[in-house]
């Protein structure tokens, strides 16, 4: 499917402003197929923005972004097609409130992929089974716990058979006892070889599942290293400071 050597995500010289605020500064980042990259950084450093530029939920000012070797198209049909191949999981789940869990998981495949309803439901049920909430399939999102909702949201993204998955703080809105059920699903996904870019503060997940850790500060990528290197031997003062604060909790 993917030609060897083409990274799944390539960001080159990407810059972005929100008004006067320079949120992304000369970002260069390649994510190889099958790689799991965790993005760390203090609040406001631009992690979410970085994540959202990859499927163009946020447009960029300059630079290039490629997904699987293709430049991000401008708004329109081609962009929609690309987004279908890029799964996204949000901090606040964003499940469709008026649809049941099963409908949430089948809507994209039916409307975008043009799958038959029967196929979409069969595949959707299998995915719900996999994330452990098949018994909730006929409920509405509001009737589920946060952890269950986030697992449903992961299943919804996977139902599109994406080439790459983006996670923006998928466990930050969860009660502590529900964090692990979501991280477990993500760890399994990582082990199965899914290409993932994950913004998270879960150091355990980063150590366990990530191939690389990218540390951002003030819109810049300050460090890019293997997890064990980054955690034991951060080179920049900003990363040391950040780790000091996080790990002292």
């Amino acid at each position, binding site marked *: 499917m993917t030609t060897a050597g083409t990274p799944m995500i390539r960001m080159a010289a990407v810059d972005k402003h929100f008004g006067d605020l320079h949120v992304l500064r000369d970002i260069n980042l390649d994510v190889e197929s099958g790689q799991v990259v965790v993005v760390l950084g203090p609040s406001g450093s631009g992690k979410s923005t970085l994540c959202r530029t990859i*499927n163009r*939920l946020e447009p960029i000012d300059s630079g290039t972004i490629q997904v699987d070797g293709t430049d991000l198209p401008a*708004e*329109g*049909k081609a962009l*929609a*097609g*690309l*987004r*279908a*191949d*890029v*799964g*996204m999981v*949000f901090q*606040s789940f*964003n*499940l*469709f*409130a*008026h649809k049941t869990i099963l409908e949430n998981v089948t*809507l*994209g495949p039916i*409307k*975008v992929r043009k799958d038959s309803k029967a196929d979409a439901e069969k595949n959707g049920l299998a995915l719900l089974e996999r994330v452990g909430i098949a018994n909730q399939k006929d409920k*509405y999102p*509001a*009737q589920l716990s946060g952890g269950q909702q986030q697992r449903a*949201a992961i299943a*919804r*993204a996977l139902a*599109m058979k994406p080439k790459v998955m983006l996670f923006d703080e998928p466990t930050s809105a969860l009660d502590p006892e529900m964090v692990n059920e979501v991280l477990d699903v993500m760890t399994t996904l990582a082990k199965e070889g899914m290409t993932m870019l994950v913004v998270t503060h879960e150091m355990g997940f980063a150590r366990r599942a990530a191939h690389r850790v990218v540390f951002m500060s003030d819109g810049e990528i300050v460090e890019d290293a293997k997890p064990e290197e980054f955690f034991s031997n951060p080179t920049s003062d900003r990363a040391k400071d950040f780790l000091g604060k996080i790990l002292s909790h």
Partner: protein
Amino acid sequence: MDVLVDNLDLYLSAFGQTILLFLVAAVGSLVLGTVLAALRVSPVPILRSFGSAYVTVFRNTPLTLVLFFFAFAYPRLELVDLSFFARASVGLILYTAAFVCEVVRSGINTVPVGQAEASRALGFGFGQTLTQVVLPQAVRSVVPPLTSVQIALLKNTTIASGFSVFQAGGIYAVLSEQGDNVFIGLLWVSLGFLILVAPLTLLQRRLENRWSVAR
């Protein structure tokens, strides 16, 4: 009671027209109003301006003026020849759609942006995002005000009597010509409207109950 019984045919045919006019205008205004709301939130600036210009014009023009235009001015334009009933319907639809548009748009604003973002992230285009995700939720949140707009429409159909569309609002004229007691006659008319509004109120309750689970 006599006024009603003696003129039962009159009442039935008049209210029949009222109901027909209402149904045509209700469906038409809901469709047109929703399309206008879609224009008002579309990413294309020209469409957005058209939507807001439309609302400004029709929401601020008295309905009588709109209907008089279609009754007297429209035929002089010598466009398509339309029956009185059709012209009354068009006038009511154009006028009511402006109100439906604003109600639906306020409903759209209650839908969290994350819903549209999740939909775009799945690969839905603007149209699919609107029809599959945003509008169904928007409409659910505005059932009561939407019902009020439709009840107002039902009552506004009476103005069409200035148009020779004979409906419930025109009953008094016939009664007074016949020398019947107009006051009693009008009481029966207003009772008729109360009865017509009841199913709308009922429908509103049922929709609200059905959709309350999903929020």
